C-alpha cells in the first residue's frame, strides 16, 4: 500500500495510470493547485536536467583536462627517467674502467714527457772529450781544441800543427 507522498511523487512524474490515477486525482483537495504544482515541478525538472546536463559536460571537460594534464606529465616523465638512468651510469664497473684508462693515459704521458726530457739533456749524451795531449817533442807547435756539432750529434777533437807526413803514410 503506497503512502500519499509516494503516490504524489509518482503522479508528479506521470507514473500513475488507470484506476490508481483516477483514484488519486479524486483524492486531491485542490486539483487546480496540484496541477499548477505539477507543472512547476516539471519545469523545475527540465531546468535541473538542463543544468545538471551542463554540469556533467563541465565535468567531462574537467576530467578531459585532468587526463590531458596527466598525459602531458607522463610524456615529460620519460626524460626524467632517462636522467635517472644517466645518474646510474657510474657503476662500479665503469668507475673501474675509467680509473684504468686514466692510469693508462697517465703512463703514456709520463713516458713521453720523460723521453722528451732527453733532448734537453742532450749535451750529456754527446761524446765528451775529457782531455787530450800531444808529445811536444814530436809536435812542438801543436794545438788542440774540441767542439760539438750538435746538429749532427758529432764531437770533434781538432788538432793543428801536428807533424805533417808524406802521402806514403796514407797506405792501407
Amino acid at each position: 500500500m503506497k503512502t500519499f507522498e509516494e503516490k504524489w511523487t509518482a503522479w508528479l512524474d506521470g507514473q500513475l495510470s488507470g484506476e490508481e490515477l483516477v483514484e488519486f486525482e479524486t483524492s486531491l483537495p485542490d486539483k487546480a493547485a496540484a496541477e499548477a504544482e505539477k507543472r512547476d515541478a516539471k519545469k523545475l525538472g527540465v531546468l535541473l536536467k538542463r543544468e545538471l546536463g551542463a554540469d556533467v559536460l563541465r565535468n567531462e571537460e574537467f576530467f578531459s583536462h585532468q587526463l590531458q594534464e596527466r598525459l602531458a606529465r607522463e610524456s615529460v616523465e620519460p626524460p626524467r627517467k632517462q636522467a635517472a638512468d644517466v645518474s646510474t651510469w657510474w657503476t662500479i664497473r665503469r668507475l673501474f674502467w675509467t680509473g684504468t684508462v686514466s692510469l693508462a693515459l697517465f703512463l703514456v704521458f709520463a713516458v713521453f714527457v720523460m723521453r722528451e726530457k732527453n733532448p734537453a739533456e742532450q749535451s750529456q749524451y754527446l761524446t765528451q772529450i775529457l782531455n787530450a795531449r800531444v808529445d811536444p817533442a814530436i809536435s812542438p807547435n801543436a794545438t788542440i781544441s774540441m767542439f760539438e756539432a750538435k746538429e749532427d750529434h758529432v764531437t770533434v777533437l781538432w788538432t793543428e800543427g801536428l807533424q805533417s807526413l808524406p802521402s806514403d803514410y796514407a797506405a792501407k
Partner: protein
Amino acid sequence: MRRLLLAFTIFFALVMSAAIPARADQTVWSGLVIAQNVQQPEPIPVELTRIERPLKELFGYNQFQVIGQSQKTLKTGQEDWLATSKFFGLHVDAQGESAAGYVLNLKLYKEKELLLETDAKLSKRSPLIIKGPQVGGGQLLLVLVVQ
C-alpha cells in the same frame, strides 16, 4: 670484461717496454780515414754514411777512404783493441761503461811513435771524430762510432 683486461695488460706492457730501454751489447767501430780532395771521389764507405755531412762540411774534403778499421763488441766495457793501417795504429782502451756511453782512452801511433793521446766519453748516440796529422795532400781522421 676479460678481453678488456687482456687489452689493458698488453697496453701496459707495451708502455713499460717503451719506458725501460733494453740493455744490449754494443759494437764500436773505429777507423783510420784518409780524407782527400780528388776529381772523381769514390763513394763514402758504409761505416761513414751516418756522418757524411759533418765530415764534408767540417773538413772540406770530397773523398774519405778507410785505411784501417776495427769492430769491437763491448760486453764488459773494459775491452781494448787496435785499428791499424800500414803506418798508423789506433789503440782504444775501454775503461768502463755508463748510461751515456763508454769511457775510452785513445792513443794514435805513427809506427811506434805516440802522436796523440786523449780520453773521451763516447756516447752511444754521438760519433767522435779526431783530426790527425796532414798526410800528403790529405788528412788523417780517426772516427769512432757506436753502432
